[in-house]
């Protein structure tokens, strides 16, 4: 794991003026009257692995979806590498972001979904190569070579010309991980990537993610109910409830010695249930 011991535990640990990779600044998100995030502040540093836990409806997934620009904030600002997701600078002022600006910021971010969301109209190969060829502008040959390497890594090289529907859920999810990585993102968002899988297929997917965590310095933000996995890969765990961070800390502390009553209740329910 890359320099996990030196990583700061949160925004407080930053040298003044040094910008974290991701910064949520008083972010508010509502769906109708339902307030999902209430003036949320938190930061993630480059290379950091952060796991978001908490009961369903606590806003974890919304955080990932906001980062991926699948949702818009109702208040506050999300900064990625010093750029706002929702706003852009024009003549020194902040104006609402246009599609072009959003695409520029999105370049750095990849996402793996709970339901895989592979494209059923494309083979595994094209699922992985199409976006790099058309949005990053790399050559077909290079994209193909990269696809093969990534499929090697997820153990599905032999399935390169298969159709997504011919794969098991676990295999589809591994392809989805390869597809996200083919875009060479700086940040990888993992949204309950094992929740839709049959129990015996979960381990294969988590092993791939552990491998990515071990061999790359990609920043990972995951929402998961797999506590053992969270313990293994994360530098920091954030416990969410009702749109707020209830508690945060290194996994050993959160899982071993939670301070907050709400965290204890939640972990008890998840681990015993």
């Amino acid at each position, binding site marked *: 794991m890359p320099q996990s011991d030196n990583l700061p535990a949160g925004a407080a640990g930053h040298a003044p003026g040094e910008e974290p990779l991701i910064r949520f600044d008083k972010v508010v998100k509502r769906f109708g009257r339902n307030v999902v995030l209430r003036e949320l502040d938190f930061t993630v540093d480059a290379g950091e692995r952060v796991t978001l836990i908490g009961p369903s409806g606590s806003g974890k997934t919304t955080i990932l979806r906001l980062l*991926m620009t*699948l949702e818009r904030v109702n208040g506050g600002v999300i900064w990625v590498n010093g750029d706002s997701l929702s706003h852009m600078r024009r003549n020194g002022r902040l104006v609402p972001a246009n599609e072009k600006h959003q695409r520029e910021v999105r370049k750095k971010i990849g996402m793996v979904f709970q339901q895989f969301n*592979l*494209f*059923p*109209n494309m083979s595994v190969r094209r699922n992985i190569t199409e976006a790099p060829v058309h949005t990053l502008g790399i050559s077909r040959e290079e994209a193909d070579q990269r696809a093969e390497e990534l499929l090697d890594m997820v153990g599905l090289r032999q399935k390169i010309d298969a159709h997504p529907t011919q794969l098991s859920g676990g295999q589809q999810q591994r392809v989805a991980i390869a597809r996200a990585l083919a875009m060479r993102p700086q940040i990888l968002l993992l949204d309950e990537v094992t929740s839709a899988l049959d129990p015996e297929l979960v381990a294969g997917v988590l092993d791939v993610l552990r491998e990515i965590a071990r061999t790359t310095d990609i920043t990972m933000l995951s929402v998961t109910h797999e506590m053992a996995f969270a313990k293994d890969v994360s530098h920091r765990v954030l416990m969410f409830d009702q749109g707020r961070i209830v508690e945060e800390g290194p996994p050993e502390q959160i899982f071993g010695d939670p301070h907050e009553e709400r965290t204890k209740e939640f972990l008890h329910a998840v681990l015993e249930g």
Partner: protein
Amino acid sequence: MTFFDLLPLYLNGAWYTLLITLGGCALAFVIAMTVGIVGSVRNPVLRAAAAVYVEVFRGVAALVLMFWLFYALPLVTGYRVEPVFAAILALGLNVGAYGAENVRGAIKAVPRAQYEATVALNMTPVQRMRMVILPQAWAQMLPTFGNLAIELMKGSAVVSLIAVSDLTFVAQQLRTFSGDTALAFTAALVMYFIIAQVLLFFVRMAERRADRRLGRAPAKPTRRGGRIAAAVKGGGA
């Protein structure tokens, strides 16, 4: 005179029917795709424009539209419109409006998760549509497109009313010449039925291909009728 003596006449009529059907289908397809895609974008002005097109051209029967193009338009422009061209234009504009609704519905039916995946892969709106949304919507559009093609073919019979010598026109002529009314029209009906079955055969083939591409099991033969036909009927005149 036996039917076989008349066969060349009927085949000639069938040729015109086929020509107008294919021409109309081509025009209707282009309109359906364009208006359907425009109707599914987020921009409210574009969407409203597409909706107006659909309502207006679904609202007027192809026959009325054809008469307008053939009789009224020349009075405005000073140019006479070729009857075959007026027919293709009227049928294409009319069926295109139904097709546009079909395209829009099929685009809307593509799961939102697929759109989200395209955002996560940072595709442009055009790339999303071209590479992911339309290829998936295609399989859903095809059965209704097939029904619309049949409706358009049936609708093409109205061209006989502006003296294009299609199948119906030939049948009418033979009725007046030979007096064997039953034979004249039965022969025409059978030939229309054959053309329809051939069209359906090609559509079914395309449907199976599209389903295979999406890795779906070959679907059961699509039924005409039911809700799909409800949305479709009236496509022709």
